[in-house]
């Protein structure tokens, strides 16, 4: 146990070293300033190091096996309907409470109020932000469903993704200008640090337990769907709302 922990700790140290070098270089060489609150920064760095090490340990012990065992259980059960329901619940449930999404939605409501798309009242803003969050969460649920269906059926990922990109491009020309930046960004913020390992393990687990599927070719791609559909759905939300 301890040697593994130490090895992970050293790995985490090297993962974090580049940031320390970059921040140090800019602070001392470019901006020519001392480091403020040195003690707090040292403690914070220690927290980051311990946190990353525990996270990596937990991935191998908890999240990866959990995602895989769920995939195997659903494959053994053989009910596509339950699998797709689970896929939707996973996508919707993990996204709707995502703090990064809540932040972006509130920001977007401010933009909409300034652009006179909605009224400048708190209530209008709150409704707009909630609508946006539900839209993104629905789109991620939908994305995981399509992605899982693709794994089960063995459809090639590139046609779906490229079709999706073309959808994004076409929508861009019709969507109101102020929503475009937010829509593009919302694709990136939906996939949180907890969701990614779980969803990846689920995809790879499904592809390994269904005969004729290759985990490398068919197992990955769920995250790609989850970052693509929010862009389309948010632009649609901007056009309707």
């Amino acid at each position, binding site marked *: 146990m301890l040697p593994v922990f130490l090895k992970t700790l050293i790995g985490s140290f090297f993962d974090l070293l580049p940031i320390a070098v*970059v921040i140090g270089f800019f602070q001392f060489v470019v901006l020519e300033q001392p480091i403020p609150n040195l003690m707090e920064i040292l403690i914070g760095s220690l927290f980051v190091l311990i*946190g990353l090490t525990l*996270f990596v340990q937990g991935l191998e012990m908890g999240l990866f096996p959990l995602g895989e065992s769920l995939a195997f259980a659903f494959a053994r059960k053989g009910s596509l309907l339950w699998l797709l329901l689970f896929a939707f619940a996973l996508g919707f449930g993990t996204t709707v409470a995502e703090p990064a999404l809540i932040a972006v939605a509130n920001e977007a409501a401010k933009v909409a109020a300034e652009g006179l798309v909605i009224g400048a009242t708190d209530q209008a803003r709150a409704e707009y932000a909630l609508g946006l969050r539900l839209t993104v969460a629905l789109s991620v649920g939908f994305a995981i469903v399509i992605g899982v269906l693709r794994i089960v059926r063995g459809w090639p990922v590139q046609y779906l993704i490229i079709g999706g990109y073309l959808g994004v491009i076409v929508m861009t020309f019709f969507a109101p200008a102020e929503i475009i930046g937010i829509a593009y960004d919302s694709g990136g913020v939906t996939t949180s640090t907890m969701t990614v390992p779980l969803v990846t393990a689920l995809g790879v687990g499904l592809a390994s337990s269904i005969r004729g599927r290759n985990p490398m070719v068919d197992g990955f791609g769920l995250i790609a769907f989850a970052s693509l559909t929010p862009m389309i759905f948010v632009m649609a939300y901007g056009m309707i709302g």
Partner: protein
Amino acid sequence: MEQKLLETLWGTVADVLPITIIIIGFQALVIRRPIANLERVGFGFVYVLVGLAFFLQGLEMALFPLGKLMAQQLTAPDFLAGLHPAGEAVNQLDWTRYGWVYVFALAIGFSTTIAEPSLLAVAMKAHQVSGGVIGVWGLRIAVAVGVAFGIALGSYRIITGMPLHWYIIVGYMIVLVQTLFAPRTIIPLAYDSGGVTTSTVTVPIVAALGLGLASTVPGRNPVFDGFGLIAFASVFPIITVLAYAQISAWWANKTQ
């Protein structure tokens, strides 16, 4: 400090609650089988929770204040003016005036991506699934180069004020052409790496950079132009990962 750590831990738990309920619900009602090694998995789950709480709290203490301040200082008119001889009027619309901003964008994009836990998770899985063909570091460096380039180009876009969608559309076109020629096994992974790059570590600092630039450069509106850097950081990693696979395949062919 202890209280803040507890608050972060509580926030993480609340964030994870929906997933936990969904998994337990399906496990109990639909699958109706106990999870293998339940104790170990449970401990792993707790490790992830506590680890994330420490990680986020540590970032709040060590990285975000300094990183955000840095982004503001590098884009502040005083700093830009100080780089040039006294008396010379600084044209803030001249994109070459922002040299350190591009260097900062490149460096911070690269280094925060290397530290991104979700990318690490995907790289570990890819390494395992590919039987070691895809290196954990190889994939992460390819992604980090893409993010670095994306953030730098995104900063250039904010400074010059060109429309966001043309850049993104051209980015997608490149992805499309590469998809036709890239090895088939890398394609899903490359698409995935676009989504995982921008997460816990990268977003707050990059957002500060975007807002700083948009409020300094004359004629830019922070509300409209501050967005969009994340989109850049999601497209370019796809290009670099596909390129990494193409170069590896080409190299393997050549040396055979």
